């Protein structure tokens, strides 16, 4: 089977600093993959590179949505989103002056197309589209379990709900791969458990593959089919949860080396 995301020799330099060093990662359809590594290993930089916020200095990023591979490095973030890669942010970036529903409605932007004239004349097509946007957004909120907050301002939501709203908003862009940047950060154990269920549901019901960056090892180990470990921008290990748990290189990266007396 062809991978839906294939990253070859990805390199990102900031001046003299090599944040990502010839990284290879591939993700298969229907997979939940995790990207882990110590702080500063280059995980978020990796996300920024494949979503177009940074232009990588070397290597290739290829996606294939319907079996047709396409190179996407250097494309603008909005174009990448339209191609089906949606992401959330480590530091929550919601539209705070908007309601929960409106946040998700913004996510519907790539799948709708009303222009200036359509908006001014409010044609039948526009009205139908507006209705569709609202219904679609509400359906997503229901699935994510945020429907009780639908008319609240995003900024007034509890922290865990804000993280879920980020996921809802990303889902609205109609992605085939969801990139979650530390979705469980700051969540309590109960919320993390619900998140675990939610991610599985997204994978199984919506057929959306997931790549997540996460520090909560319990969540990572229970969810992931495949785990990629990076340190200093290099991949140091890859494999299933069991393999990674017992990999001496990974343990070394996280805990440091044992000094024999």
């Amino acid at each position, binding site marked *: 089977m062809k991978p839906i995301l294939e990253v070859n020799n990805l390199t990102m330099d900031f001046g003299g600093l090599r944040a990502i060093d010839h990284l290879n990662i591939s993700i298969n359809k229907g997979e939940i993959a995790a990207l882990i590594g110590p702080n500063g290993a280059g995980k978020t930089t990796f996300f920024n590179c494949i979503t177009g*916020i940074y232009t990588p200095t070397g290597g290739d990023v290829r996606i294939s949505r319907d079996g047709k591979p396409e190179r996407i490095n250097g494309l603008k*973030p*909005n174009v990448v989103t339209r191609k089906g890669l949606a992401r959330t*942010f480590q530091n929550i970036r919601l539209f705070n002056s908007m309601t929960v529903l409106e946040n998700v409605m913004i996510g519907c932007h790539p799948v709708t197309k009303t222009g200036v004239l359509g908006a001014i004349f409010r044609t039948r097509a526009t009205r139908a589209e*507006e209705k569709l946007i609202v219904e679609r957004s509400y359906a997503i909120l229901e699935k994510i379990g945020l429907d009780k907050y639908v*008319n609240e301002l995003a900024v007034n939501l509890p922290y865990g709900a804000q993280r879920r709203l980020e996921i809802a908003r990303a889902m*609205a862009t109609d992605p085939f791969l969801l990139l979650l940047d530390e979705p469980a950060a700051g969540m309590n154990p109960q919320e993390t458990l619900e998140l675990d269920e939610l991610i599985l549901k997204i994978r199984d019901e919506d057929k959306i593959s997931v790549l997540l960056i996460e520090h909560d090892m319990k969540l990572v180990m229970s969810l992931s089919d495949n785990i990629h470990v990076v340190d200093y921008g290099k991949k140091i290990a890859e494999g299933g949860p069991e393999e990674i748990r017992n990999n001496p290189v990974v343990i070394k990266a996280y805990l440091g080396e044992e000094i024999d007396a």
Partner: protein
Amino acid sequence: MTVNNEIKKSFLASVWFMFLTFPIMVIKVNTVSNTVEWRWMNMVGVGVGAFFLSMLWRYLLVKKEMGGKKEKTDKPGLVQRVLGERKFAVPALVVLGIFTLVFPHLFSMYQTNIMISALIYVMLGLGLNIVVGLAGLLDLGYVAFFAVGAYSYALLNLHYGLTFWIALPLGGLLAGCFGLILGYPVLRLRGDYLAIVTLGFGEIIRLVLENWNEFSYGPSGIANIPKPPLFGLDLSLNQKTIYLFYILVALVIFTIFVINRLQDSRIGRAWIALKDDEIACQAMGIDKAKTKLRAFALGATWAGMGGVIFAAKTTFINPASFTIWESVIILCTVVLGGMGSIVGVISGALLLILLPEYLRDFGEFRMITFGTVLVLMMVFRPGGIVENVRKTYTFKR
């Protein structure tokens, strides 16, 4: 304790003011008889006046802070509530409509002319509101597009004899193109930087108009611009003015309609999202460049149409009408009225343009009063006259 404290502070303020105004208010040198006149009564007046004004100021500030603590919820103000209720809004609109219709017949030509100026600013304010209020792009060179509109009518009429009705959309279109031209280089800029670049752009347009004599006839300007024709009828000057007033009212209504629709659409939402968070906005698949350019071009289009009407109203234009001061006034109408709020911007424009006119009786105190009103407004109502309460989508099953 606090009251004593306030009194003490006010007392100090009044002493300070007495000291400051001492040379000009107390000492008067009579150069003819070579005597110095000591007007101590003035000093007392300044002291007492400053004391009471200071007390009033402090009282209002304290009251404002108390009020601010009480209502932290998103409760809409009185105006929004009245406008929200159909049974109030409909009669109010009907009365306003009738008043507008009979206005030029009820009042003198002078009043109608002032009102036309004010309505031009309403249009400009609403146009700038798209750029500043909705998309959050601070534009200090807005008057440039106004100039483009005015000059396109004047020049097209002069050289090709185009009439008002053809020049109106053309002027808007040309200004819109200038909006795009300005928009492209400044796409990556935000906030202060954007303000400075747009400021420069506004000045460039004015300087070009001032110095390119062959094209724009320089500082001497272009005269004899015709007023809008009405089916070839021969109208008197009065009738022409009234006709222009009605055209303007129709255009303002059209503007309100368009902005209302835009605000409440996929595009308007994208603007608000862009204002909130650019990076998240792009991650949602919104094209930042396209969205910003749209705002710039649409805003400029309205300035252009305003310019055409301005040229038709004054029948004479020269670069002196398009100085940075105009940009500032238009921006003031938006900020003072309430950013993003249509009713707010309209009341802001009417207040800012009509107030200095009606204050002419105050003579030299006119601009001081104007400035004082601005300062007071911004201190006590920073959200504007009618604060924008964005219509949010409420989902009902």
